[in-house]
C-alpha cells in the first residue's frame, strides 16, 4: 500500500530580504505560513512546485510537510523558519 501523502506547502526565501515565504492559493508569496496553500496530493505538489519555479523573487523553492489544520509545520526546522532564531527576538517573531 502506498504511504499516505503528507500535506505540504511550497516555501522559499525572498530574493531581496532573504525572509521565509510561502506560496498562497492565488500563486502569490506570503510571509505567513497560515496563508499558505496546502497541497494534498503528489500531482498537485509537482504542479505547484513546477509553476513556482518561474517566480523571480523566490530563491530555493521546495516543499515542506505540514498538518492539514493550521497548517502547522511537521518538522522542527520549519517551525524555526516560520518563527526566527531562539537567541534573539528577531526575524518573523519580531514582525508579528
Amino acid at each position, binding site marked *: 500500500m502506498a504511504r499516505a501523502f503528507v500535506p505540504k506547502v511550497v516555501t522559499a526565501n525572498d530574493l*531581496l*530580504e*532573504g*525572509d*521565509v515565504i510561502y506560496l498562497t492559493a492565488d500563486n502569490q508569496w506570503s510571509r505567513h505560513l497560515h496563508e499558505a496553500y496546502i497541497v494534498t496530493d503528489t500531482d498537485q505538489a509537482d504542479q505547484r512546485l513546477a509553476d513556482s519555479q518561474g517566480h523571480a523573487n523566490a530563491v530555493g523553492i521546495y516543499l515542506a510537510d505540514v498538518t492539514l489544520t493550521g497548517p502547522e509545520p511537521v518538522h*522542527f526546522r520549519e517551525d*524555526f523558519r516560520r518563527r526566527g532564531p*531562539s537567541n534573539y527576538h528577531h*526575524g518573523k517573531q519580531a514582525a508579528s
Partner: protein
Amino acid sequence: MYSYSDFDAAFVTERNRQFRAQVERRIAGHLTEDEFKPLRLMNGLYLQLHAYMLRVAVPYGTMSGPQMHQLATIADTWDKGYGHFTTRQNIQFNWPRLRDVPDMLDALADVQMHAIQTSGNTIRNVTADHFAGAAQDELADPRPVAELLRQWSTDHPEFQFLPRKFKIAVTGSPNDRAVTRAHDIGLRMIERDGAIGFEVIVGGGMGRTPMIGKVLRDFLPQEDLLPYTEAVVSVWNLLGRRDNKYKSRIKITVHEHGIDAIRDMVEDRFTLLRSQFTGVDATHLARISKDFAAPAFVTQDTAPFDLAYQRDPVFRSWVDTNTSSHRAPGYAIAQISLKAHGQTPGDATSDQMRAMADLAERFGHNELRVSHEQNIVLPHVHKSNLPTVFAILQQHGLATANIGLVSDIIACPGMDYCALATARSIPIAQEIATRFDELGNEHDIGDLKIKISGCINACGHHHVGHIGILGLDRAGTETYQITLGGDHTETAALGVRTGPGFSAEDIVPAVERVIDTYLAIRTAPDETFLHCYNRVGMVPFKAALYTTSEHADAA
C-alpha cells in the same frame, strides 16, 4: 599592521564594483539564482535560514580600532546592531538585505576590509595564532607569512575553482593556538640551525570525516613557502575528487593516495615551481614584515596594577583567568570574553564593538584580535592600564572572567541561523553556561573546552573539544551526541563518542554528570579534565552517562 597598497585598494574597489553590478543584474532578473550563487559566495554572501548572511574576513584575526569601529557602524546601519565572531576569525552579519550588501562592502573597503574568498571553493581566510606578535612563547610573528599567503591566494587564477574549500593556518609558537592540525595546510614555525622554517602539516580537517593532519615536510625553509604551498594546492587541484563533495577535501586525497605518494608528487611539482618564483616573494615578505614591526612598547610603573590586584578580588580573578604572559616586560595579553553566561557565544553588540575599539586605541597600541575561540583579544596592554581597561569592560558587559573555562564554549550558529543545520547549538551553549554559573564551580573545574556543532560539518570544532557536542536530527527530534577527549592543540586528538545521544532536555544534565565524574576522580585540583580523561579513559564517564535511573528506565 598591514596597510593596503594602491594595488590592493584598486583590486578591492574593482571587485566591489563588479559585485554591485552583479547584484543589480540579479535583482533585475538578468541573472538566475544558479548563475548568481557562485558569484555571491565568492564575495562572502550566503542565504541562510531566515535571511542573507555576510561573512567578512578578519585576516589572521588582526584588526585595528578604526576597523572595529566600522564593523559597529555596519551593524547599526545595515544589520540589527550586532555581529557574530566565528572560529575562522571572521565576523558574520546575520540580517543584511541583498540591496544593501554592495554598500556594506564599500564601507568595509573604506577601512581596508573585504569579504572575498570567505566562501566558495577557494583558499579561505588564512588564520593565525591570536597571540601572534605578543606571545611570550613565540619564535616569530606568523602574520607576515599569513599576509603573504593571503596576497598570493587572493584571486589566484589557478585556484578559483578548487575541488572544495581550502583552509590554511599558521602559528609561530610551539603551543599551537591556531589548531594547525585540523587544517588543509597547517604551518608550524620552527627553527633549524638558526634559520626559520616550517613544519608543513597537510590533510587535517573536521567535517564528517575528521582527520588529524600529517607531516608532509618536517622542515621547509621560509623562502620556499610560496612555491611549496602552490605545489601542494596544485597537486590536490588535479587529484582532488570533484565527483563527490564528501570526498573532495585534501584530507581524503591524502588518505586515498597515502602521504608518501602525495609527498613525492608535491616535491616534483615544487622543483618545477621553485625556479619560477624568482625571489620576488622573499623581497615582498621582507616589505610586509616591516608592517608588522612590534609597537613601541613603553616602560611604566606597574604599581597601579599591583595594588588593584592585591585589593580587588574581582579584578584579580579576571586577571588570573583572562590575561596571558606577554613577551614585553610590563605588558599583558588581555582576552575579552564574548561568552557572558547565557549570551550567544561570539556575539558582540555595536556598543560593545565600539567599547573594544576605544580600548584598543587608548590602551592597546590600536590592535585587536579575533580568536578562533570566538573571543576578542587586546594583544598589547601595559599592566598599569589593566585596572582601567577592566573597569570599562565591566560597564559594557564584557568583563566575564571565564576564558578557557566550562562556559567559554565554541558554538556554531546551528539551526538558529544555518540552513545546513540538523539541530540548534546556541541554546545548548547558553544553557550549559547558565547552569555552571548557578553551580558556581567553573573556576574549580578549571581548564575545559566544550565545543558544539549543529551538524556533522563541525564548524564548531566539536571533534577537538575536550567535551564535544554534535546536534543531530533523529527521527524529527533534536538529539545531541557527546564526544570526549578531543584536543585542539599541538597534541591534537579527535574525541571519542560516548554512546547514544541525548535530547535537548537531557544534554545539559548529561554534561553535568560527565563533569561531576571528573571532579570525583581527578587526582588533584590541578589535574585537568583532559588529563584525567586520558588517564582513566571512557569507562567511568560512560557509566555516569548511561547507568542513571532515567536511562535504566528507557532501556
